[in-house]
């Protein structure tokens, strides 16, 4: 058994290691080292906890067994999961953090002696507040992440679910949680505690159901942030520095990512939370417009010809590419182009994919060197000097309407200036609108050649034609 002061020092060290873990992600070269720091920090925290409790009864054996079971499940998932499913995985993992926070808070409430928080029915006031906030945020994270998981996995429709009085109901429930916590502090009543948790589960569900599929990158980042605040809340209860530091880091990390995603979609955080975006109410009046505009369509041969004669090509991948599993075929196509001394780069919009940075990972998986992949602001000026833009699986993020039509729902959203290229190849199954439910003007430009096909098949056909 080690002293409380010594263990606090070790918790501080693991907190610092976690900071270094995030710091490592500032560049791919240092990122792996960062991950090892993270693992080391976690190992220290776990070992120190065993040593500081110092109760090596038969419980210890069970803990090891449970650790191994959980670890094996986690490792199995980590190795099996396809990279396209990362958003679901992260949402699922967030739900586990949330639920773990709830359970730790319940354990602390039922057995406060173990945590030095007083006795059952007579818990220190501050601890009681901290553990109820930790439990409430954890419960919201859990049920919210489950809904996000179901939506991302396609087990539940991505369409927003709204009903009248929804926001009022959320507000009332939110206030109810605070009132219950207040009475919990006064009475130490167990039923109050359970009610706080139950209502929080409900709030989590209600918060996420109105948010549409297009806003999922924001939702995941937001839940990431919540899981951090939940951990911090528990950290205050347990008076544990490692948890407080980690909670703050994760909380601010998720908040920043939400902010970046909102900015990339030109949406305010509030409007995302209120939800309802992506409901296709505007598609009808656009339909007639579609009819009298001619669209040029081509085949793989045309596309191969255009690209062979280009000197620079910019690839614009989107989530559709990942759905069609076209990234490996795409890489093959790019290799062929490079052999012909054609300069190829990739342009990635921040919301390409279903979570922040998702597209980068998918390209990395297909062995695309990360120094050929550029973010929107770094590459947008290059479109004007490039011969061909190859848009595969992206849609709304290339729509010039965002720059020209103030009435458009996506007006003001930063978009890739694809139309400035000499010619645009647009791989798409049909002319149907994207997530935002609006028509893409790019389809009807004179320099656009539509390639109507499945992304993977089309890319493979182009590869054949490049020989």
């Amino acid at each position: 058994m080690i002293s409380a002061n010594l263990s606090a020092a070790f918790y501080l060290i693991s907190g610092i290691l976690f900071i270094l873990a995030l710091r490592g992600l500032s560049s791919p070269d240092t990122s792996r080292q960062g991950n090892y720091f993270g693992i080391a920090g976690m190992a220290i925290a776990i070992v120190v906890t065993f040593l500081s409790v110092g109760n090596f009864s038969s419980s210890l054996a069970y803990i090891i067994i449970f650790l191994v079971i959980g670890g094996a499940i986690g490792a199995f998932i980590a190795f099996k999961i396809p990279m396209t499913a990362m958003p679901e995985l992260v949402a699922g993992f967030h739900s586990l953090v949330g639920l773990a926070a709830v359970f730790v808070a319940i354990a602390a409430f039922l057995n406060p002696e173990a945590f030095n928080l007083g006795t059952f029915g007579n818990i220190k006031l501050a601890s009681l507040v901290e553990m109820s906030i930790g439990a409430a945020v954890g419960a919201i994270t859990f049920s919210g992440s489950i809904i996000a998981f179901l939506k991302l996995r396609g087990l539940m429709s991505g369409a927003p679910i709204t009903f009248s009085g929804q926001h009022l109901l959320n507000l009332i429930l939110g206030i109810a949680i605070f009132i219950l916590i207040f009475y919990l502090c006064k009475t130490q009543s167990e039923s109050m505690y359970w009610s706080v948790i139950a209502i929080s589960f409900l709030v989590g569900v209600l918060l996420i159901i109105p948010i549409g599929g297009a806003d999922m990158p924001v939702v995941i980042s937001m839940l990431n942030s919540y899981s951090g605040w939940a951990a911090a809340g528990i950290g205050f209860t347990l008076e544990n520095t490692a948890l407080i530091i980690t909670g703050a880091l994760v909380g601010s990390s998720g908040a920043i990512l939400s902010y970046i995603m909102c900015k990339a979609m030109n949406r305010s955080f509030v409007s995302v939370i209120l939800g309802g975006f992506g409901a296709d109410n505007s598609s009808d009046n656009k339909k007639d417009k579609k009819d009298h505009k001619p669209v040029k369509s081509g085949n793989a041969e045309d596309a191969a010809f255009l690209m062979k004669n280009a000197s620079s090509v910019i690839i614009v991948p989107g989530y559709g590419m990942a759905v069609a599993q076209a990234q490996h075929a795409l890489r093959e196509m790019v290799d062929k182009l490079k052999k012909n001394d054609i300069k190829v780069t990739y342009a990635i919009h921040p919301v390409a994919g279903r979570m922040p940075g998702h597209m980068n990972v998918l390209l990395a998986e297909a062995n695309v060197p990360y120094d050929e992949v550029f973010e929107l602001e770094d590459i947008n000026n290059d479109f004007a000097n490039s011969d061909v833009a190859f848009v595969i699986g992206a849609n709304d993020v290339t729509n010039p309407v965002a720059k020209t039509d103030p009435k458009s729902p996506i007006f003001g959203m930063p978009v890739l200036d694809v139309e400035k290229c000499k010619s645009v190849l647009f791989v798409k199954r049909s002319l149907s609108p994207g997530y935002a439910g609006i028509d893409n003007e790019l389809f009807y430009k004179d320099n656009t050649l539509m390639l109507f096909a499945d992304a993977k098949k089309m890319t493979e056909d182009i590869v054949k034609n490049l020989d």
Partner: protein
Amino acid sequence: MEIDPFIFRLSIFILSIFIGYYVVWSVTPSLHTPLMSVTNAISSVIIVGAIIAALAGSSENVFSTSSVFGFIAIILAAINIFGGFLVTQRMLQMYKKKKKDKK
């Protein structure tokens, strides 16, 4: 007057938010997905609370009501810790492979 230890913890918390703010802004956008998976893994340090709760059971009664919650939380957090770090590692390996290809 003595300062409540809560204030110290609050100070750590607030300073950590600032550290988090600056550190996360310096993360390159191409690594935002690994960032999410690794933050997910480290937030499972909540396992320390679960371990304390689970160890609180006596030798005769390993599974009291409160320690059972601890045990379940250990499984949940362990899934996250191993899953989170390993999947991050897997992603980061992919960023490495490409460098080798180029040389």
